[in-house]
């Protein structure tokens, strides 16, 4: 600690304390009556509007590693590093095609994770398990990489560098992640959402000051680009090849335009398949919020473009280049060293604080997403099918701790080059979910076994190809690109094409053989609905989406609520509108008076916009029911939406308003 600048260190610590307090205070922000529900803990009540979603998704997508690694790649290899800018341009036009559909169907059916949707769409536990496994697998190294970002800052600050003991050296990292783990446990998704305001503000300040100030110190943009061009066209004596590329060349193997394009496209396709970005999107309160953010988030990408150019600024600054060389040529340190050299210590402290906070926000969301995947699609699906929402939340909280500490060990113990390349492999893995998730949002044509076979083939191909890739310094996991048919392409894209081809061919075969397809619990119109009320969210004490459908909205003509029109569902499936339940059925034992939901059919919920015009009888019943409920029982007649795919009304026993309503309509 002898070389630590006191001012810089103090500012980083103060910012960290502010963030810690904010994280704990977030538990009271948009307070829920019962935090022990995954919709509250894991999705913050699904109530975020455009503004909060923009900050949160920005904080979620653009991580600390982005601030450190993207300019590091530009610093080390040149134009290929700009693929990150290219892919963040493409990601939103791609996401706007499928993300609103995923939001809608998830809202209607109370899906918390993408694997929930896959389970409901294909009626396949195996496919859902594959998606959950892939999501967790891809997220682990991603969380670890946030720590690598923090470590880069700590190294430049000189914290812990004097000790050879791994534990002592990483004490600040342990402290940061213990605090992160605790406030995530307590506040859930609310914590990173609130902290992302601080993070994004700091990052904007950092980047805008840097792009206006540093070029004036380095002789202008012309000099910066000139230095980069000279450097990347010169020959590296060690490899006898150019150091990098200033503009992606159209020919020759290496950093070609095709590599650039496939890397961009593959990464863009992968980004909104990651569970943590989907978690961020599902937390928004309306479908239009998701769409609106797709057009607003490119503003954040401008920031990324400017951040990437910090790599060239570092290259033009001789002191930074010398500092990086003195640290074994670790390019991850280029940006922290640049800021340390260019700015007074107090501003360097602000920047380092921004990077540290920028690591904590996405790491928290990633841990929550991984925990939700485990709880919903592994624990509940295979070990405890009758888990209550409270138990689900408790398990998620503990798993989020385990995930974070697993990532911590990952970051501390494994060599960083290994971790960084595993992150690239994470993109390869998560892309294999695309056919089942994105395909499933548009068609039910694919066979579940075909998708599983395609997924397996894609995962194997991608993993083996990435493992085999080597460089002069690294024998395995050296790159995420491979040579296919004489062209360098992103492994993830090749793997997903193989995955898709197998899924299509096997689907044709299985359909011809009339292999059972599994029950699809979704309906076509559910992919475009925009329900105001959330599904089965505990009644919030304060603001939030859940109040929108409450009885307080009765004066409004349009009441959007969620009720289970079982008869309608049965009609849609060609079943009798009403059937008595067998004795011992959980619906009956759970107090559904004269329930008529068949045990083997899901107690599906639907979203109805009730107006006197389109549903006269339903509307009048609802008004009476709501008033009675509100007036005499003193409860808010907000009907929770519950979507269950099996065991019918097991969970609907909590749905008192729904029960009451069915009772009324039956009479």
């Amino acid at each position, binding site marked *: 600690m002898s070389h630590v600048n006191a001012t810089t260190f103090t500012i980083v610590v103060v910012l960290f304390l502010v963030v810690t307090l904010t994280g704990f205070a977030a538990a009271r922000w948009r307070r829920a009556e019962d935090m022990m529900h995954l919709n509250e803990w894991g999705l913050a009540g699904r109530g975020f509007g455009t503004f909060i979603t923009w900050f949160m998704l920005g904080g979620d997508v653009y991580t600390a590693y982005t601030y450190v690694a993207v300019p590091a790649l530009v610093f080390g290899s040149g134009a290929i590093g*700009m693929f990150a*800018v*290219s892919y*963040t*341009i*493409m990601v*939103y*036009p*791609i996401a*706007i095609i499928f993300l*609103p559909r995923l939001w809608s169907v998830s809202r209607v059916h109370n899906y918390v994770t993408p694997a929930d949707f896959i389970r409901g769409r294909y009626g396949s536990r195996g496919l859902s398990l594959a998606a959950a496994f892939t999501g967790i697998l891809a997220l682990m190294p991603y969380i670890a990489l946030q720590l690598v970002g923090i470590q880069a800052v700590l190294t430049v600050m000189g914290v812990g560098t004097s000790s050879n003991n791994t534990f002592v050296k990483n004490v600040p990292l342990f402290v940061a992640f213990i605090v992160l783990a605790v406030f995530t446990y307590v506040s859930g998704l609310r914590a990173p959402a609130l902290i992302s305001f601080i993070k994004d503000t700091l990052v904007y300040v950092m980047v805008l000051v840097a792009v206006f100030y540093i070029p004036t110190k380095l002789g*202008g*943009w*012309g000099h910066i*680009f000139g230095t980069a*061009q000279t450097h990347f066209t010169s020959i590296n004596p060690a490899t006898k090849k150019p150091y990098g590329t*200033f*503009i*992606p060349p*159209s020919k020759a193997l290496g950093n070609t*335009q*095709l590599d*650039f*394009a496939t890397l*961009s*496209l593959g990464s863009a396709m992968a980004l909104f398949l990651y569970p943590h970005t989907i978690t961020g999107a599902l937390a928004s309160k*309306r*479908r239009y919020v998701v*769409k*609106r953010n*797709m*057009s*607003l988030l*490119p*503003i954040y*990408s*401008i920031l990324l*473009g*400017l951040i990437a*150019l910090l790599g060239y600024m570092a290259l033009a600054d001789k002191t930074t280049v010398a500092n990086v060389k003195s640290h074994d040529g670790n390019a991850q340190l280029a940006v922290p060293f640049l800021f340390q050299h260019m700015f007074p210590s107090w501003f360097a402290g602000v920047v380092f604080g921004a990077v540290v906070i920028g690591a904590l926000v996405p790491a928290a969301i990633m841990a929550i997403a991984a925990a939700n995947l485990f709880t919903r699609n592994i624990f509940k699906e295979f070990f405890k099918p009758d888990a209550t929402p409270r138990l689900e939340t408790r398990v998620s909280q503990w798993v989020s701790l385990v995930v974070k500490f697993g990532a911590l060990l990952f970051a501390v113990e494994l060599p960083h080059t290994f971790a960084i390349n595993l992150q690239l492999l994470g993109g390869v893995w998560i892309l294999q979910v695309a056919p089942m998730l994105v395909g499933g949002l548009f068609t039910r044509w694919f066979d579940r076994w075909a998708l599983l076979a395609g997924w397996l083939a894609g995962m194997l191909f991608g993993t083996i190809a990435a493992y085999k890739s080597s460089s002069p310094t690294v024998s395995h996991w050296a790159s995420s690109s491979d040579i296919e048919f004489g062209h360098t392409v992103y492994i993830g894209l090749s793997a997903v094409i193989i995955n898709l081809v197998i899924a299509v061919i096997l689907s044709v075969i299985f359909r011809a053989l009339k292999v059972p397809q599994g029950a699809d619990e979704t*309906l*076509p*119109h559910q992919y*475009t*609905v*925009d*329900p105001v009320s959330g599904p089965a969210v505990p009644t919030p004490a304060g603001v939030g989406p859940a109040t929108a459908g409450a009885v307080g909205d009765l004066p409004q003509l349009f009441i*959007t609520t969620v009720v289970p*029109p079982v*008869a*309608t569902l049965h009609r849609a499936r060609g079943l009798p509108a009403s059937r008595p339940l067998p004795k011992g059925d959980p619906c009956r034992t759970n107090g559904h008076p004269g329930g008529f939901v068949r045990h083997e059919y899901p107690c599906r919920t639907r*979203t*109805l*916009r009730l*107006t006197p015009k*389109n*549903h006269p*009888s*339903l509307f009048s019943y609802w008004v009476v029911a709501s008033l009675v409920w509100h007036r005499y029982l003193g409860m808010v007649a907000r009907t929770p939406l519950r979507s269950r795919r099996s065991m019918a009304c097991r969970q609907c026993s909590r749905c008192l308003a729904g029960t009451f309503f069915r009772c009324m*309509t039956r009479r």
Partner: protein
Amino acid sequence: MTQPAVQRTNPVRAHPWISATIALLIFGCIFCTLYVPIYASITPKAGDFPFFYFYLLAYMPVVAIALWIVMQLQKRLGVDGTDSGEEGK
């Protein structure tokens, strides 16, 4: 509890030009980034910025505007937000 099924026409079929515009805007946004030869050159420079870097930075607001137009057009198509309570498929 009679609930008349609302038969809705396919919005894409009902508004072919709007649908085509939406598709064009979305795929145009992707294509103009994906097809690297469009912008993989140093010239023409914009100030001190080589064209490759300037293009990538300048294209982002274009995408933002294009997607905002897509959102507005989709409202006109009525594919979302309007059917939150409808029964029809």
